[in-house]
């Protein structure tokens, strides 16, 4: 299901068959988190990280202003602090800011933010209203047939696929 969700976001999944996915996401299951994560990943990969980037920046500047984190630079220069904290290896150095570990933390924070925004947006708009789909992607055959049955145009009788009153299998 997660694979399908990923495919849907990438536009590689048939939107008409994606009803169950959208329902699951809306239902607030684990998929909802995935939805946000996948979008974040996608945005980052495309470099389209307007919101996440700002947020990460703020996290970074906040960390910079945080003395307890910034203070221990290297073990050799501040041996006292090392003994005081007893956890120097887990404290970030300035050089580590661009390390993958930091970014994963920042990204997680951004993801949480992202999910929060998603939830807020959903609460603002009417929750049961699904976005309209283009008619060409979902042709209302039932109405085409009902029209031809009730208001036949010359010979439309002869090309009808099936009776519209017939239950579909």
């Amino acid at each position, binding site marked *: 299901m997660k694979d399908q969700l990923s495919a849907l976001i990438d536009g590689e999944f048939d939107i008409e068959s994606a009803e169950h996915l959208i329902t699951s996401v809306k239902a607030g299951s684990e998929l909802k988190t995935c939805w946000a994560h996948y979008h974040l990943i996608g945005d980052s990969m495309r470099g389209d990280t307007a919101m996440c980037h700002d947020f990460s920046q703020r996290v970074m500047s906040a960390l910079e202003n945080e003395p307890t984190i910034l203070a221990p630079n290297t073990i050799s220069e501040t041996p006292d602090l090392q003994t005081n904290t007893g956890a120097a290896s887990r404290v970030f150095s300035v050089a580590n800011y661009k390390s993958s570990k930091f970014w994963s933390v920042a990204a997680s924070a951004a993801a949480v933010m992202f999910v929060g925004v998603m939830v807020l947006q959903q609460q603002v708009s009417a929750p049961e209203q699904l976005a309209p789909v283009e*008619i060409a992607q979902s042709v209302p055959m*039932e*109405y085409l047939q009902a029209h031809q049955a009730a208001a036949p145009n010359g*010979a439309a009788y002869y090309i009808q696929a099936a*009776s519209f009153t017939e239950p579909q299998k």
Partner: protein
Amino acid sequence: MLRVASAVLLSALSLSTLAAEDAWLLLQKTAYAARELNYQGVFVYQNGKQTRSVQITHMNNNGQEMARNVVLDNGVTLGQAGQAGQPREVYSQGNNVVIVRPKNQKVVMEKRRGQNLFPAMLPTDLRAIEASYSAQLGALEMVAGREAQVIELIPNDAFRYSYKIWSDTEFGLLLKMTLLDSKKQTLEQIQFNQISMLNSHDANWFHPKIDITKNYEMQDATVTSPTDSSWIVAELPAGYVKVEHRSLVVPGKAAQVDQMIFSDGIASVSLFIEPVTKGMRPKMGHMLIGSTNICANVIDGYQITVVGEVPEATVVQIAKAVSFKKQTASNK
């Protein structure tokens, strides 16, 4: 009696001297000929990518019209792969139409209301279309081995297509008709490939060819009269009037669907209205299938779908013109 007079008048005139006014007289003759003559033939219908050959036998016994149409070939049906068109026979007596077709081990029969079926595509009362179209006589051409007079019905505005009609110069029977858009491109064509007049009044042919040892299943369209209408169509395209309003049960739909049919005398448009229910994906936009334009819109929580063999402008205008009365007492 009027039509006898008009037929006499027509035969007295040379076709080449007919003016525009006489084009209407010829159309009138054509409208009656399809309903009053006894004939048998094969016609071909083309719409978009679809083609059907149909054998027709038509008889008028003392004012009682009887017709049998047998679809001679199958094609791929509209967008439903795996459900190729099934052989069917259409029987009509007066305005009652019964469609007979085999389904698994059964034979399914459906009752329909018939109107304007080929070659009786022109209404006998032409006054409705006189307001929206102008008629012009064209050349003489051969269709199905018969000489035919071409008559063009040209719309006065952009809300309808134009029609080209070939009328048998001897009998007045409609031999061919094409539906053309504003760029004169053919959208739909229906014509006899072979036609002959019947002299006998023997009606032995009026029974299904389909295996009668099978079980029959009657399918009535689940249609009721709408109790109340909470909506109106504010501004219909010029020339269109409401001809029918009904409620349908459509499989897969939670609520009943309101259907309203509009006609300008020759072209028909259906308007469907259903509430947008929870979990339903509303549809928007426009598309064209063969000669049929479809437009979908959402207004006040209702799905509006308009379908018709008319130009895009017509379905779009109707789809936008629907408005709903407020349920509460206070006017808004």
